[in-house]
């Protein structure tokens, strides 16, 4: 297996991009990454996108997008694993280069979610749940994560305030990220006073509806070193992926995200690293409880230790292991298919020392964890600066 590096990153500013169609948002991110890498041809394009069909009525996305970019003819594939579609696009590009099939791959993720109203968006997102066991009975994602939160609170004593502190931290980080959808300061009181969505989760525990795209250029180690031009070379040293029952009803334990644990273990093993080695981490905080559970499943903290950790500031910038320096899904926004790619882009920026005001000093090892649905799939990447 060949070593694989990230040689370019590109993001659009996340938000309600009403003036731009899906293909334009995607193309802007793709061009930014290609320019960052200094390349104009690639061997393959991967696109992570959860549901362009339900959000915009458009499928056959890979051909549509590469044509808009002006490179029709190139091999291109759209991949889907619900909200982990972006992570899957990264892993697909990684595998292509590691196997020797491709030399340079444009990895992208995109979602255009604001062309439909709230009810239609909720339905589209709900297709990531198990329709027969969950969706048909009326539950939506806030309800599923509320059940996970209840289970976690019951087992470990995780508190309502600890959940709020995840939102407070991530919004504080979002203030430092120019690409973030929200630039607003949030306090524990504002979280606890926001509209109740699904008890115990409130509005400010939930990630938003977002339009956005993110892109990376991956290349072989040889190519990356030959084209580094003095910039730090960031290598993907571990890629782990795992699945779990989509429906919560089929799981043994609701206080743990098993797919995240398994994907993490596989990534750590490939990279030859341990949780204690990490300097900066992006996790899939679609709801505040998800960040707490993901940090535990990744071994950053003991089971039940995620809540106290955020309360003690261990996951803040300047803490023991900063989590979601980008603002996370909570503040940066959650264009579902783009999220997994944007997470890796944040880690690359941190490892390159290009993260501006939110830079974690001396960061050399980072991890990005992407998740589908309520944990039915998860993809973890470990990156290192060489």
């Amino acid at each position: 297996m060949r070593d694989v590096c990230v040689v370019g990153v590109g993001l659009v500013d996340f938000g309600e991009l009403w003036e731009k169609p899906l293909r334009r948002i995607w193309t802007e991110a793709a061009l930014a990454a290609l320019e960052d890498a200094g390349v104009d041809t690639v061997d393959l394009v991967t696109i992570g996108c959860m549901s362009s069909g339900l959000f915009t009525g458009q499928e056959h996305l890979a051909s549509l997008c590469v044509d808009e970019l002006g490179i029709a003819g190139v091999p291109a594939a759209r991949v889907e694993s619900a909200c982990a579609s972006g992570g899957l696009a990264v892993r697909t590009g990684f595998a292509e280069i590691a196997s020797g099939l491709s030399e340079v791959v444009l990895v992208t993720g995109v979602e255009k979610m604001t062309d439909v109203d709230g009810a239609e968006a909720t339905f589209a997102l709900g297709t990531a749940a198990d329709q027969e066991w969950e969706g048909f009975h009326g539950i939506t994602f806030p309800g599923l994560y509320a059940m996970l939160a209840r289970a976690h609170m019951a087992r470990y004593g995780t508190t309502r305030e600890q959940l709020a502190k995840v939102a407070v931290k991530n919004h504080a980080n979002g203030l430092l990220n120019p690409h973030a959808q929200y630039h607003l300061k949030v306090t524990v009181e504002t979280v606890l006073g926001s509209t109740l969505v699904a008890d115990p989760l409130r509005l400010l525990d939930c990630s938003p509806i977002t339009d956005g795209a993110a892109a990376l250029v991956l290349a072989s180690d040889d190519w990356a070193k030959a084209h580094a031009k003095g910039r730090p070379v960031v290598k993907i040293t571990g890629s782990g992926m795992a699945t779990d029952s989509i429906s919560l009803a089929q799981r043994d334990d609701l206080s743990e995200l098993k797919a995240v644990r398994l994907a993490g273990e596989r990534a750590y093993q490939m990279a030859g690293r341990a949780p204690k080695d990490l300097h900066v981490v992006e996790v899939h905080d679609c709801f505040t409880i998800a960040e707490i559970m993901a940090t535990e499943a990744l071994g950053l903290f003991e089971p039940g230790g995620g809540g106290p950790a955020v309360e003690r500031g261990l996951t803040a910038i300047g803490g023991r292991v900063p989590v979601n320096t980008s603002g996370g899904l909570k503040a940066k926004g959650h264009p579902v298919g783009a999220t997994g790619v944007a997470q890796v882009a944040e880690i690359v920026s941190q490892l390159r020392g290009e993260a501006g005001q939110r830079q974690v000093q001396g960061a050399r090892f980072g991890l990005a964890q992407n998740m589908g649905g309520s944990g039915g799939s998860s993809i973890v990447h470990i990156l290192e600066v060489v």
Partner: protein
Amino acid sequence: MRVGIVGYGAFIPRRRIQLEEIAKVWGADAPAYRKGLQLNEKSVPGPDEDTVTMSVEAARHALARSGGIDPKDIGAVYVGSESHPYAVKPSGTIVAEAIGATPELHVADLEFACKAGTEGMFLSQALVKAGEVKYALGIGADTSQGAPGDALEYSAAAGAAAFLFGADEEKLIAEVLHTYSWTTDTPDFWRREYMHYPRHGSRFTGEPAYFRHTKSSATGIMEKAGMKPSDFAFAIFHQPNGKFPMRVGLDLGFTKAQLETGWLSPWLGNTYSGASPIGLTAVLDVAKPGELVLLTSFGSGAGSDSFVFRVSDRVSEVQGLAPKTRPQLDENKIYLSYGQYAKLRGKIRMAE
């Protein structure tokens, strides 16, 4: 020739429903709505009140302030509304007949979501200015519909305002100094034929629709007039809820004091075609000669009309000649339960 308002009047129904009364039916978060939309209660039309009857009331109040204009001299009547009682058959003919303006006149019903009222005002002043008619009556009136449980149900209200335009120097209450309109095709809110309730693009109704159009329109007219916010004594913006008009006004550099007099929506709700025009009547009720007034409407779809008025000496003579707007809003209220409200708004399916 100076053209302006020579008579004005408003009508607000007595019935009200409070935000909490609606919210409790739907299990909604009333404090969040109260804070987020800055709405407390809204007007509701009674069993014998509709767009036509409210238009007639407002028109009669306008005539009462006109200094004895003969209704037969009114050459045009325009009723702007998105809740005309008939899909086919004009409201304006009933109004014109009721005030004694028929038969020698031009009548039309107008529709442009929430800005049909200022359209009638624009056409009226333009026809007078062109010398086509002696007087013209522009009315904005609505008994707006919000689907049960929808966010619009907390705001969709009822009311009317009427403005007589003319060019008699001695009758001028407020002269029209400038007009300006800003229009694009922006589908933020709509109701198709045979649909009972309108649909809206939720958050899309904010920045790309309301704020972009009202800001462009208000900025445009001030540039055209060579004026700035501090030149005005009052500014009135379309008020779909309590929050939007105050925010756009403050964003443009107006002060709360300039905005508050015509800011009725926190206690009136959104009277659609009547909204900013009723706000103007509340301003004229207290305005002093020489003061400048900015009026900026908004209609989904989308467009915004702006007017700059200069209040004339006659204003103080006419303010007391018909019911003022604030007392209609603040006094003699009848509070409804949701059940009574549902009955009056035709939301209960009856035996066929």
